[in-house]
Structures are given as C-alpha cells and as structure tokens.
C-alpha cells in the first residue's frame, strides 16, 4: 500500500447498482475498506431488471455475478441492504455518517431453502416486475439475487401468518418483530451512486399510459422480454395476451421535453434498438417502428444502430408523436407528422413502448442529506460528495462503470488526504 494509514480509511458507497458495485469493488481491490449501502433488499440495482445489455445483447447478470463473487471473496467490503444514509456530517477526508437499517425480517442465517415462501399465502404485486405479476410476501427478487437470503414485506411481517411462517424456518432466520436500527460510521469519502428511476409515464398525458392497456414503458418491456419476467419472456400485449408483432417505440417519452425532463436520457435510443431486436428475434414476421427526434447512438454504439438498420422490418420515423388514441380493437394509434416526408400519419400498432427517460433518484427519493452536495436543476449531483454513474448524469452502463471507477480514485484521494 502506498500509505498504510490511508488504507485504514473507509469509503462509503451509497447505492448497490452497477455504479456502486464498481466503485466498491475497485476501491477494495486497491486495498481500501468499503462500506456499501443499498436501500433495496438485494444488490444489482436497475441493471438487474434488464433482460439484456446493448450492444452485445448479453445478460447483465453475467457481469453482476463477477462483481458479487468479488464482494464475497473480499473481506474489505461490508455491505448493508435495506439501508439508507440519513445524515452526513463533516467534510471530505473526515465524515461521520448516520445510516438507518430498515428491518428485513429475515436474518443472514437464511439458507434460501424456500420453505417459508412455500407456505406463505399472501401475494403482492411484484415491484421487481413493476407490478405486472404477483409474488409471495416473503421472497427473493430472482433466482440469482444477491445476497440470496430472503426478505419479507413490512406489511406482511405484522400479520399472524408471518409469525407462523417464522416457526417453520429450519434456520430460525425469520424474525417478524425485527426493528429498524441506526448506526454511525466514520468515513473518509462518500460516493453517491443512487442511480435512476424510470420517469413516471402517466405524467405524459398525450400518450395515454395507464389509460390504454397496450401502451407500456421500456423498463416494463425489459421484464416482458425476460424469461424470468411476468410472461416468461413472451412478448404479448397486456389487454388480450395477443402476440405483439407490430410494435412501436416512442423515443424521448419524457426526455428532451420541458413539460417533463428537459435533458436527454442518453440510453433510450440504444435501449429501443435493443428492444426492437427482442421483438424481431421472437417473431420473424414482426414489424417494428421507431419514432425519434434524433438517433443518439454515441461513438462506438453507432455500429449497433447500423446493425439494426440492416433489418428491413424495423422502420425509423423522424417524428415526436403528438398523441396516442385507441381504436375499436384496442390498438394504440400513434398520431403525428413524419418530419422528413411532411406526411401526417395515424398508425395503429399491437403494442406501443414508451422510451421513458431517467429521473435521478438523487432528485426524488435519494437526496444527499445535510446539504452535503450541490445539484443541477434536474437533481443530478454536481458537487460536494462524489457522484458516480447516473447520480451525476444520464449514462449507459459502460460509461457508468468508467465514472464509478474514476470515483473510486477520487475517494482514495480523500482517504490519502485524511491518512
């Protein structure tokens, strides 16, 4: 180690998505102690909900698995799930943070045997699948979830059944009376990696999401296309379960729009190209239409755009649709002007996917506490504590990893300063 004392320092990483995991693993493997805090029951964040990554069309779980292995094998990394940072005092090199640990109602003694879920009779809308299906009130997000021990919904924990279920756990891991606790930690640096949430499509009134069953969003579509999603990977339309063979993607649904999110969310164009391949791969006789303002396939991603352009069954219309109506058959009808031909169109589809943008958690439900950060007008963190990935700007996965690795370096600088 460059500086033994510096190495004794701890780096706090807030958020266990791809950015937070990366900062944690990279800093720890350089010899520093890391405390990783995640508000959800399991790590992986937003990418864990994705079916595939562009442009390689491979599973996010593959990269997550390596990172999880590295965390398991590295005693320098401590991680807390269901936890949130409540307060940050002090300054770079010397912070005191207060962390609230919300109850999981299941301890690490859980062996993942699943006996509890088997007897649990309460089912809830599955947040991991955006409520598109029901799951047990005591569960795992998915078979590859890490940490793999189960968790219980707080509402369920209060029920009598929960107490009965607790009795049958062979490992005695279920504790319905578990309570929240608060811990305090001394850390040299704070890296905010709280990522993003999909913009609420119901706010985009002209597109009728929530009003028309067959208008969905890109993140829901990821779950729809996933073998482990609500339909087992069948791309069907919600209204009648009909195979969705004619699918429209509407770009900038919320992004680049002063009525919603004025900034560009960067990944949506590429995400829709990727999702177009889901449809085309599943149904050879399918047709996909992408409505866009500008196709933003930055730098090397351009080749992915060119690849999808080779498919004659994917058409591209430069147009921000004005609105969506529903016809008698429950087909969403997309209405607008093709700005390259001047033609005013009204096109029916089986399913319309809104490419909704990124709303930074740091703007809504994961604000940096105690004024320890400056934000831009959109809520991205621009100063104060360090910010990685989508907490700082809308970025794709590779760029998030770059940013997260860079933030590991900045955090180490803070530790060295302290040391």
């Amino acid at each position, binding site marked *: 180690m460059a500086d033994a004392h510096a190495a004794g320092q701890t780096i706090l990483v807030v958020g266990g998505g791809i950015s937070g995991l990366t900062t944690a693993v990279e800093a720890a493997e350089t010899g520093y102690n890391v405390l990783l805090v995640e508000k959800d029951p399991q790590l992986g964040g937003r990418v864990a909900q994705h079916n595939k990554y562009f442009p390689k069309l491979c599973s996010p779980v593959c990269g997550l698995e390596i990172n999880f292995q590295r965390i398991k094998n590295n005693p320098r990394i401590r991680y807390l799930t269901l936890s949130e940072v409540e307060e940050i005092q002090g300054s770079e090199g010397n912070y005191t943070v207060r962390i609230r640990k919300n109850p999981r109602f299941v301890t690490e003694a859980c062996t993942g045997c699943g006996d509890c879920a088997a007897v649990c009779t309460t089912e809830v809308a599955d947040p991991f699948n955006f409520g598109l299906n029901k799951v047990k009130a005591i569960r795992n997000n998915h078979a590859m979830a890490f940490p793999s021990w189960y968790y219980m919904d707080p509402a369920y924990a209060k029920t009598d059944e929960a107490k009965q279920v607790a009795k049958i756990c062979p490992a005695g891991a279920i504790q319905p009376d578990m309570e929240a606790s608060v811990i305090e930690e001394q850390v040299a640096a704070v890296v905010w990696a709280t990522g993003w949430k999909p913009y609420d499509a119901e706010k985009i*009134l002209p597109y009728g999401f929530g009003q028309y069953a067959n208008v969905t969003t890109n993140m829901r579509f990821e779950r729809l296309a996933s073998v482990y999603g609500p339909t087992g990977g069948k791309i069907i339309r919600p209204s009648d379960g009909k195979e969705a063979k004619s699918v429209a993607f509407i770009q900038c649904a919320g992004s680049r729009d002063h009525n919603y999110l004025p900034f560009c969310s960067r990944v949506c164009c590429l995400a829709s190209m990727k999702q177009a391949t889901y449809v085309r791969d599943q149904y050879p006789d399918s047709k996909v239409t992408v409505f866009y303002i500008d196709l933003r396939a930055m730098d090397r991603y351009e080749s992915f755009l060119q690849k999808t352009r080779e498919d004659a069954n994917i058409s591209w219309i430069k147009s921000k649709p004005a609105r969506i109506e529903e016809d008698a058959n429950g087909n969403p009808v997309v209405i607008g002007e093709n700005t390259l031909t001047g033609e005013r169109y009204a096109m029916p589809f089986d399913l319309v996917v809104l490419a909704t943008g990124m709303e930074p958690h740091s703007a809504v439900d994961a604000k940096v506490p105690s004024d320890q950060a400056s934000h831009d007008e959109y809520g991205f963190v621009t100063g104060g504590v360090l910010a990685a990935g989508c907490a700082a700007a809308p970025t794709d996965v590779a760029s998030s990893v770059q940013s997260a690795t860079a933030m590991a370096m900045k955090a180490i600088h803070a530790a060295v300063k302290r040391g």
Partner: protein
Amino acid sequence: MKEYTFFPGCSSEHNASAANMENSIQSMCRILGIQLNEIDDWNCCSASIGYAGGGQLPRMAMSARNFALAQKQKGNTDLVATCAACWLSMRETNERIEEEPRIKQDINTALAEAGLSYDGHIKTRHMVEVLIEDIGWETLQSKVTKPLTGLKAAGYVGCQTNRPFGVCGDSYENPLYLDKMIEATGATAVPFPMKVACCGGALMFSETEKACVLTKQILQSAVDNGAEVIITPCPVCQLNLEVYQGMINKTLGTNFNIPILYYSQLFVLAWGGSWQDAALHQQVIPAEPLRRFA
C-alpha cells in the same frame, strides 16, 4: 353573498347568440347567492380571431380597457368571464401586462388616449372556476332538488377553457371537471373521447366545410357513446355544435338532432329552476330529453 366583477362578453348580450348561457348563468348565480357586477361600458375582448386585424397592442388594449374600467369601477375584485374566449384573452392580456414592462408601458400609453390606465393585479376567472373553487362541489351537489337521474350527457370541454391555462389544474388531455359537474346534477357523464377535440372555433365562419368535419366527429362520438345531450362551458362550441347541425346533416349525410346545452342550464334545472330560468326555451334544437325533468 359573493360579489364579482362581471365581463359578459358580446355573445352574452341581450338577443345575442349566447343569451341562453347568460340567462341561465344569472339564474344559477341567483340560486347560489352570487352577485355579478357588470363592468359599465365594457368592450369586446377582441376574441381569438382578433389577432389578424389588431395585432398585439390593439388586441390587448381592448382587454386592457375592460380591466381599466373594472379597476376604476370595482377595484381589484376578481373579474369573472363566462365566455371561454373572453376569459382567455383577458387572462393572457393581464399576464403580459404584468410580465412585460414594455407591453405595460405601451398599453398604458394607448389607454391614456381614453383617459384610462391599468397596471395589472386583476385576477380573471372563468365562471366554472368560481363554482369549483369558491362554491365547492359539496354545495353544487347539495343544491340538487330535481336530480337528472338517467340523463346521458357528454361533457364537451372543448379547447379554450382547457388550454393553454386549464381549469383548476385539470389535465389538458382528459379534464374531468365537466363530467364531475354533470354527475353533480345526478345525470350520467358518458365516456367521451372527443371531449377536448376542437370544434373549429372561429374558422367555422371562414373554413366552414373543414370546420364542419371537426364538428361532425364530435357530434358523432357523443351519439355513439349514447349521449342524449352535449354539455359545454363555451359559447363558441355551443354555437358551432348546435347551429351547424342542420348544415352538417345536409352536407355530410348525417341526421343529428342532439341538444347542446350549457353546464349552467343543467344546474339550474337540477336545482329546481324552471324551464325558463334555465333558458331552455332558447335552444335552437329543443332540449327534449330534459322535458322529463321539467
């Protein structure tokens, strides 16, 4: 007794096209204990089509004169308009006077020619805003003595009470306030996808054929959804939908005969007012479906 400065607008004059709105609104206010103090010697707001002949300053000067008179006569009490177009142009004028110093200055230079001045600060409100915000849904419902149970009505909001300002923060694409008013009278608001579609507005005069196609779609949708009557807050919409039904039937081969009423007429009837009070005798297409409640 609530008091408001009142700007009726040209169509609400005696013997004018929206006399039925004016008369029913007066009855409505009587029942609710609202006193409308009409601005003395008001002039036309210049309406939405006034831009072409007037441009910005002359157009806004006209509304400004009304504000100036109102301020002089009644101080800064809220100004109530019943016509969507009046409400819109008055509100827009006031906003620009308050936000753009240059406009404020020029407008006042012009007003000075009429011995008047206006520096903003009068809130322009549409009558439906008064009903919702000042009177409240509970009262609107509690007044009902003759519920219009079973009446199927399509709430046609149209454009100008809805965009660009909107009523009470209601949604542009699917406003609910008018349906809620219909339901408040005991009637049923039928689903109505065309509730915010445009009737053609002033272009009914110059582009009649094109406008009639729009109006036809609105009427058709109401009928298809089982409406017996169409309810609207806007005199332009009312006129286009009612007066041009005949022409539409002739030129577009339909046979519509659906009464077009104002929300105020519905309220007055449901609150026990007479056929006359509700100015239902002033419908070109007789309000037959309401007979059973009269």
